[in-house]
């Protein structure tokens, strides 16, 4: 290639959607230019389907998400599809785009996404719902699905929030429920066929798509309500539309392609490392954990394929860090061999290994010692609750002995910082259970002073308590549980803090807790119904976006929106739900039976522990998938 001349240098070799003066006036202009190494460029005239894949949050967050990279890679393997990426413009750029009428664009082609065939959005957390509306708005698309026309893209939602998509029912044409790798070929083939045969209309296409397993068209269902506000019926409006939508699952993970040549952002992503997904699902069955339920059954990738992926990732990215991804890495059967392999391959290439979600025991501490600087890192435990009674209720199979044993080993190994994660506001929680949290931390600190002789101590130990407030999620055994008013959450947090300050080792303890008001809103949306669409729209119109960012979250704006729509948020969170109540998400068949969840809810209230999937099948219903841990 020839060296560019001065004049060639100052011209852009790619079309950019944002003007030079805009790019130079916003923070991190590289968020908006595309052009990253690994970004897929195609000739738009050679493809039949343009797909915009959106993570409705800022670029650095969205670029850290593995799911999008997987689908981006898979879709683009089809020569007839060009899948491009879109993220929420940060507030500075969004403001200029809105003011100047610049339509939201895809990063690769820099072309407006409103001209695309599909706009797919991943819904990872409830607090992104106003960003969904902002994406549609900046794209210059009507916000309501019913107002979008034949030429507008079909808007599809996916991700964990689709396990109750109802609050977003008004805004999406389609949801896909399950693992995105399944059935997308059928879906694209259907679209192409209808387009080429000239049988396409939005309505005809949605009818046909609803026949593909996992696809849900909210507009094709009708809800009626009892006088008390609960659901009386939820039925399809048409005879060709299925009454339940089945979650789609990949049965053999090894058979599904993996993105070993991911897009490499210029702007540092929140997760700036290679990601090796080792398994899906979890054997543990913690009763609060939605991921632990909706991704069942636990399925592992083979050691051989993981070794192959790791080497390919190293070659293709040049990254200096690799991370294992799963819900509970310690449960991966062949973890020791995998880690030995990585230490060997990464060590000689100066690549760091990051090991999140490891259970703390002799093995993991030994591994961490090999791959981390003990002095600079902390050891993390997630007991989730302070008392054994509470841990039994949530089925967190971590005992005090495990924690003390692990902490003692860590202290002996040279660590003196420990992080502890807990939840407040769990069902059946009493003040005694709340104060059990700082008492546990206090005992861990005491253990440090008992275990480590004075001359070997590196100052005080540092035990950091962090709490979030429990939000009951659909398809978990705790989906029947009530929540509490904001003042009650704060009272519990303050009780925890005051108790901590009175303890012997309080100087070694510190405490942080999450925002309580955002928790309330998250709770409303998690178990909300389609009547909430109006509230989201009203709040967005009043200026709500980036609600997941505490600096932009404004609870008063939301409370005003509830009031304006005549909807009482307490209905969704403060009420005890009856065992025969029809939930807004009951039309989804996740494979886990409601009978199982109810049994677990009873066991929770009785404090009875359920063994993990490997010890004994608890009959959740997922064995019907005939995959992973269910067929061992």
């Amino acid at each position, binding site marked *: 290639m020839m060296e560019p001349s001065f004049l060639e240098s100052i011209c852009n*070799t790619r079309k950019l959607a944002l003007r030079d003066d805009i790019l130079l*006036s916003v923070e991190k202009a590289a968020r908006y230019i595309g052009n990253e190494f690994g970004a897929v460029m195609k000739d738009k005239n050679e493809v039949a389907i343009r797909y915009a894949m959106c993570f409705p949050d800022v670029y650095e967050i969205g670029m850290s998400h593995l799911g999008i990279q997987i689908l981006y890679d898979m879709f683009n393997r089809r020569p007839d599809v060009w899948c491009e990426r879109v993220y929420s413009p940060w507030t500075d750029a969004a403001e200029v785009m809105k003011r100047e009428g610049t339509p939201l664009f895809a990063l690769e082609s820099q072309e407006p996404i409103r001209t695309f065939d599909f706009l797919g959005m991943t819904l990872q957390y409830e607090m992104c719902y106003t960003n969904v509306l902002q994406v549609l708005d900046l794209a210059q698309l009507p916000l309501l699905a019913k107002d979008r026309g034949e030429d507008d893209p079909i808007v599809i939602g996916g991700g964990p929030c689709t396990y109750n998509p109802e609050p977003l029912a008004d805004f999406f044409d389609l949801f896909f429920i399950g693992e995105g790798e399944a059935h997308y070929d059928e879906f694209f083939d259907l679209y192409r066929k209808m387009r080429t045969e000239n049988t396409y209309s939005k309505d005809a296409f949605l009818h046909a798509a609803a026949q593909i397993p996992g696809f849900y068209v909210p507009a094709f269902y009708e809800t009626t309500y009892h006088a008390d506000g609960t659901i009386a019926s939820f039925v399809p409006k048409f005879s060709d539309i299925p009454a339940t939508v089945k979650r789609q699952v990949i049965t053999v993970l090894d058979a599904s392609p993996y993105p070993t040549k991911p897009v490499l952002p210029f702007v540092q992503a929140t997760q700036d490392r290679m990601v090796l997904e080792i398994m899906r699902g979890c054997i543990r069955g913690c009763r609060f954990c939605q991921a632990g339920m909706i991704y069942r059954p636990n399925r592992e990738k083979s050691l051989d394929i993981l070794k192959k992926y790791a080497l390919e990732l190293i070659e293709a990215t040049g990254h200096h860090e690799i991370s294992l991804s799963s819900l509970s890495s310690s449960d991966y059967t062949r973890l020791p061999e995998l880690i030995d392999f990585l230490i060997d391959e990464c060590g000689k290439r100066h690549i760091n290994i990051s090991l999140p979600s490891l259970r703390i025991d002799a093995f993991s501490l030994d591994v961490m010692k090999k791959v981390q600087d003990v002095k600079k890192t902390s050891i993390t435990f997630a007991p989730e609750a302070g008392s054994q009674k509470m841990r039994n209720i949530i089925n967190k199979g971590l005992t005090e002995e495990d924690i003390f044993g692990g902490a003692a080993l860590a202290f002996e190994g040279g660590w003196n910082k420990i992080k502890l994660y807990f939840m407040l506001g769990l069902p059946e929680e009493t003040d005694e259970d709340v104060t059990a949290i700082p008492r546990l931390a206090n005992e861990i600190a005491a253990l440090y002073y008992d275990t480590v002789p004075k001359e070997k101590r590196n100052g005080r130990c540092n035990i950091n308590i962090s709490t979030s407030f429990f939000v009951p999620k659909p398809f978990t055994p705790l989906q029947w549980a009530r929540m509490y008013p904001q003042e009650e959450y704060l009272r519990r947090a303050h009780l925890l803090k005051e108790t901590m300050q009175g303890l012997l080792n309080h100087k070694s303890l510190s405490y942080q807790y999450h925002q309580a008001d955002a928790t309330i809103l998250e709770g409303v949306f998690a178990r909300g119904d389609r009547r909430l669409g109006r509230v989201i729209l009203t709040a967005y119109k009043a200026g709500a976006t980036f609600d997941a960012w505490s600096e932009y979250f404004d609870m008063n704006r939301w409370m005003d929106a509830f009031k304006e729509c005549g909807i009482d948020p307490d209905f969704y969170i403060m009420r005890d739900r009856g065992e025969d109540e029809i939930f807004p998400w009951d039309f989804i068949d996740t494979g886990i039976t409601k009978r199982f969840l109810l049994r677990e809810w009873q066991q929770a209230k009785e404090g009875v522990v359920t063994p993990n999937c490997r010890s004994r099948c608890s009959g959740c219903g997922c064995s019907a998938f005939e995959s992973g841990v269910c067929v061992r």
Partner: protein
Amino acid sequence: MRYRIRFAKYGVMRYVGHLDLMRFFQKALNRAKVPLSYSKGYHPHPLISFAAPLSVGVTSGGEYMDIVTEEPIDAKNTLDALNAQMVDGMLIVSVKELSDKAKNAMAAVEAAAYYVYFKEYPFVRNDISGNMSILSEDGSSPAELKKYDTDAFREQIRTFYTNADSIYITKQTKKSERKIDLKPLIYDFHVEDTTSSFSENAEQTGLPDINVVFYMLLSTGSTDNIKPELVMEHFLSSMGITPDAYQLGIHRVDMYRRDEKNELVSL
């Protein structure tokens, strides 16, 4: 073994900041399998250093970074291997071995040459298929400046720079104000002859028809680091012109060190 890599950063890559560029190169060098040496200690980092960071928005044909390798590398092969890892707007121009006694780029750099121009809208670009075309007409044309002809600028440079004994300015730092004389730190400042050096038939080449281009050679490095926008700001204000924000375009032409005869040569 030490090597100096010269590269160009142009087009859309002007929007990528220095820290992001460093991360980009670290990965690209790994992908190209360059056997980088690492620092010692618990957090080893690859031995890569840059001559002088380039501000966001500035293009360049003469950027430099030094690398240290564990074993000798073939310059030509490395050049090709690295270019295979580049993106639109990045080009590796040369890879050269450094002698043992050569200072590293950051310490050696003494001067940098720049072209400064007034941005004209619309910008020109290649589309994906490689065809040149003119971008949409949004963005205001800086019509104000068109009435200044190059002769007026040439004349003012004589007053402001060539014939001036000193150019005192007040430089704001975080803590204090400092009076400095720019005159000895500006080694050259003139208006380029755009009719001969640059494209005059914009329509044929698709390249912009630039009205006026300033050339300046400025002291650069750790002691007296003079930025072209600083010089332009004082020069233009001496003519009573305040350009709009983001209106000045800057292109770094090259960076220089002093050789044994104290003459400026490319890094």
